C-alpha cells in the first residue's frame, strides 16, 4: 500500500498546476481516487461526513447487477447447447461452469467494448471540461451489455455507447444533468437504427460457429399471435409453449431459461439485485413497487379484456417475460432521470409499468415496450415533479391568505 501511495505521490506533481501534464489532471485524479479515498477533510460547516460517496453507491449497484450477469452468461451457454448439443448440459457444477464459461466468452468482449468506449469518452470530456470524472458510467457500462442481444455485433454496441454518452449525457453537462437514462438510450438507438440486428429469431441465442440455431424471445413469439390471418394451429402451438410444460412456461420465465437480452431473462436474478438495492437503501422502493403495481394493473385489464391471445396471458406471466422486471429494478430507478420527489416517484413508477405493458401488447412490433415507456417517462418526470412541488407552494401561499 505504501509503495502505491509513494508512487502516486511521486507522479502527482506532474499533474498539478504548473506541471507538465497539468491538463490531464482529471484523468489522474480519477485513477488516484479509484485506488485511494482521498485525504480531503471537511472545510464547510459540517465537520463530519457520511461514509457514502458516489463510488460506493455505483459500486453497490454494480454488485446488484452481478447475479444478472452470472445467470445471463450461464443462460447463453444453456440456450446454445440445448440446441447444439443437449448432452453437454449436465446437472453438476462442472456442467454449470462450462455453460457459464461459454457465455462469459461471448459477453466479456461486449463489456470491454462498453466500458472501453464509454469511459474513453467520459475521460476525454472530463479533461476537456476540466471537471472530475463522474462515476455514473460505471453502472451504465455494465447495464448496456446486459440489455443487448448476445449476437449483436460489437460495432453496434460501440456506436450505441457513443450515441448514448455524447448525445444522451455529455451535451447536457455530464452525469447528473442528463434527461434520459443513458443505458436505455443506447438500447433505443440500436433498436431504431439497426432493427434487423436487434430483432428476429437469430440474435437472441448465440450462434457459435453454426448458423442454424434459432430462438425467439417470449415476446417475439407472442407477437406472432396478433398478426392478420393467423392459423388456429399456430395459436395453439404458441400457447402450448406458454403452458406449464412449454419452453416459455411460467417457471422457465421466472427462473430465466428463455432466450432474451443477456441480463434480463431471470426474474430470480433481478429480484436478488432488487433485494441488494432495497436493503442498502440505494434503489427507490417507491418506483419499483409502483411500477410493479402499474404493470400488473395493465396486464390485468388486458386479461379481463381478452381481445387476443396475447392479452389473455396470465398477468404474472406477462410481467415475468421480456425486460420488464429488469427495467423497473435497474432502469426506472435511475435517480437522475426518474422523478425526484417522493410522491412523484409513485406516479412515475406506476406509469412506467402501466405504459410498458400497454405498448408491448398494443404494438407487438415494439416488444420492448418497457424501454420506450421508461424513456417517455424520463421526459415526463420533471413535469410530474413540477406539479408535486407546486402543490407545496400552493399550501404555503394559502397559509398567507388565511
Amino acid at each position, binding site marked *: 500500500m505504501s509503495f502505491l501511495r509513494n508512487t502516486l505521490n511521486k507522479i502527482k506533481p506532474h499533474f498539478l498546476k504548473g506541471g507538465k501534464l497539468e491538463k490531464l489532471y482529471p484523468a489522474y485524479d480519477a485513477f488516484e481516487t479509484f485506488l485511494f*479515498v482521498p485525504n480531503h477533510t471537511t472545510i464547510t460547516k459540517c*465537520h463530519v461526513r457520511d*461514509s457514502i460517496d458516489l463510488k460506493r453507491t455505483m459500486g453497490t449497484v454494480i454488485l446488484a447487477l452481478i447475479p444478472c450477469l452470472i445467470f445471463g452468461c450461464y443462460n447463453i451457454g444453456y440456450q446454445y447447447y440445448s440446441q447444439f448439443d443437449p448432452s453437454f448440459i449436465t446437472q453438476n457444477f462442472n456442467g454449470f461452469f462450462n455453460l457459464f464459461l461459454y457465455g462469459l466468452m461471448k459477453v466479456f468482449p461486449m463489456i470491454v467494448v462498453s466500458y472501453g468506449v464509454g469511459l474513453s469518452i467520459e475521460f476525454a470530456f472530463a479533461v476537456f471540461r476540466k471537471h472530475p470524472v463522474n462515476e455514473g458510467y460505471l453502472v451504465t457500462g455494465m447495464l448496456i451489455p446486459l440489455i443487448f442481444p448476445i449476437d449483436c455485433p460489437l460495432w453496434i454496441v460501440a456506436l450505441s455507447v457513443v450515441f448514448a454518452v455524447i448525445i444522451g449525457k455529455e451535451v447536457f453537462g455530464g452525469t447528473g444533468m442528463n434527461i434520459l437514462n443513458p443505458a436505455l438510450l443506447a438500447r433505443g438507438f440500436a433498436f431504431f437504427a439497426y432493427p434487423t440486428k436487434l430483432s428476429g429469431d437469430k440474435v437472441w441465442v448465440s450462434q457459435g460457429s453454426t448458423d442454424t440455431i434459432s430462438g425467439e424471445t417470449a415476446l417475439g413469439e407472442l407477437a406472432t399471435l396478433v398478426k392478420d390471418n393467423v392459423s388456429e394451429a399456430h395459436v395453439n402451438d404458441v400457447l402450448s409453449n406458454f403452458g406449464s410444460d412449454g419452453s416459455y412456461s411460467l417457471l422457465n420465465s421466472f427462473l430465466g431459461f428463455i432466450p432474451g437480452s443477456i441480463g434480463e431473462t431471470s426474474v430470480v436474478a433481478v429480484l436478488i439485485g432488487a433485494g441488494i438495492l432495497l436493503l442498502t437503501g440505494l434503489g*427507490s422502493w417507491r418506483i419499483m413497487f409502483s411500477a410493479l403495481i402499474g404493470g400488473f394493473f395493465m396486464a390485468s385489464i388486458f386479461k379481463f379484456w381478452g381481445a387476443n391471445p396475447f392479452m389473455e396471458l396470465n398477468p404474472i406471466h406477462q410481467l415475468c417475460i421480456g425486460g420488464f422486471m429488469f427495467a423497473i429494478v435497474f432502469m426506472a430507478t435511475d435517480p437522475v432521470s*426518474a422523478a425526484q*420527489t417522493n410522491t412523484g416517484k409513485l406516479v412515475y413508477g406506476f406509469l412506467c409499468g402501466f405504459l410498458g405493458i400497454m405498448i408491448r401488447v398494443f404494438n407487438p412490433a415494439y416488444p420492448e415496450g418497457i424501454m420506450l415507456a421508461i424513456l417517455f417517462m424520463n421526459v415526463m418526470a420533471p413535469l410530474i415533479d413540477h406539479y408535486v412541488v407546486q402543490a*407545496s407552494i400552493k399550501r404555503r401561499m394559502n397559509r398567507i391568505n388565511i
Partner: protein
Amino acid sequence: MEVKISKGKNISLKGSAEKVCSEFLSATYSVKPVNFHGLKPKLSVKVGDSVLAGGSLFFDKEFEKIQFVSPVSGIVEKIIRGEKRKLLEIVIKANKKNRYKKYNISGYKKYNNDKLKELFFESGLWSLIKQRPFSTVADPVKLPKSIFISCFDSSPLAPDYDFILSHKEKEFQKGIDVISSFCNGKVHMNVDGDADSDFFKNIEGVQLNKFHGPHPAGNVGIQIHHIDPINKGDVVWVLSPQSIITIGNFFLTGKYENNKTIAVTGSELKKPKYFNVFQGVNVFELLKGNLKSGKKRFISGNVLHGDTIEENGHIGFFEEQITVIPEGDYYELFGWAMPGFKKYSFSRAFLSSLFPQKKLTLDTNMHGEERAYVVSGQYENLVPMDIFPVQLIKSILVEDIELMEKLGIYEVAPEDFALCEFACTSKMPVQDILRHGLDLVKKECS
C-alpha cells in the same frame, strides 16, 4: 402543544459531557463580529484601551445604537482582521477581578417598548436576540410576531439544558417576563417531550410545547415551522435559554453578565464535562491537560454546524459547546470498496449497518469527492418540514429569488439542513449554499 417529528436522525458520538460542572476563568476572552451574520461592525475601542464588562467593543454601522459589549473587564489585547480588513475578533486580556459597567434599571417596568429597546441596544442585550428569517441579529425596527426558545438541543453531544439551568429559575423567569413585553404574540418554550424535565414546568407566561423525535427536532427553525410558520414579511425572535438568563440577570442586578455553562465534548478529550465560563472563553487554557494525543480539530459548537477554531482560539458568541474530534487527513486504499464494518452511514451500503456501534468516533475525512447531484430522496428524509430541500437548494444554485421564496426559504436557516450536508452522497456544501441563498434574498428585500 405536542409535535411528533419522524424525519431526521440522531448521531450518537463518543465523548458526551459528564454532568459535573466547574468554574473556569481564562486569561483572554474574545468577541467575534463574524458570529453575527451580515453585521457591518464598527470598532469603538482600539488596542490598549481598557474596557469594563458590559462596555462597548463595537457597534452596528447601519444602526449605530446597537452595541456589542465586552463579557469581561480588561484591556483590548488584539484586534484580528482577515481578508480585506474584515473584522474577525477582538481579544480582551481580562482583569483578575471583573468590574462591571453599571446600568440604571430602576423603573424599567414602566418603560415603553422604545425606551426598553434603547436599554437593550446600549447594554449589549440586543446582540443576544436572533431573528428569523435569515438568522441574523434582530431587526431593531420590526417587532416579532412571536418569540421562540428551544429548551433542548438534539444535535450530537449537545449540552443538557436541564442540567445547565438548574437553580436559575429566578433569572430565567425574569428574562421571560422582560422579553415577552416586546411581543404581542406568544412566547413559545419548546422542550424535549421524551425527557422528564422539572425546570420548565414552573415557568410562567409562556406556551410550553413538547417535541418528540430525532434531531433536528431541537432546532428552533423546525419548531417554528410546526407551531407558527414564518411567511414573507414575518419576523420571529429566537433566543437560547442561557441568553434569557443573561437578560434576566441584567434586570435583577443591572450588570451585563454573560456567564454561561458550556459542555466540553468530543472523542479526543480525556474527560468531557461542563464548565461555567464567561462568553468568549479561551479554549487552550480550558482544555489544557484534557486532550488525547494526535491531530485534532477544535470546533466551537457541535460537529454539524459549528465553526473550526484554532487550538488556542476562543469559543463563539452563541455557542454553548466545544467539540474536539480527530482530523481525518489520511488516504484509504480502496476505501469505497471495502465491506466497511466500522464506517458510519445513514444509508445501509456498508456492513456497519448490520453491526451498529452504540457510540461513534467520527473524524473530519470527507469520505469522497464533491459531485453533481445524482442520488435523490436523501435530503427529504432528514428535513422535517413541508419543504422540498433539493428543489430549494437548486433554486439557490440558479439564484432564482422568486422560486426560493415560493419554496420556503424564509423558514430555514443553514443549521436546519446540516444533516443533509452530512448525508449528501455528492458531498455538497449544503449549509453554505443555503446561506448564500438567504444573503441573496435579504439583499433583494432591503
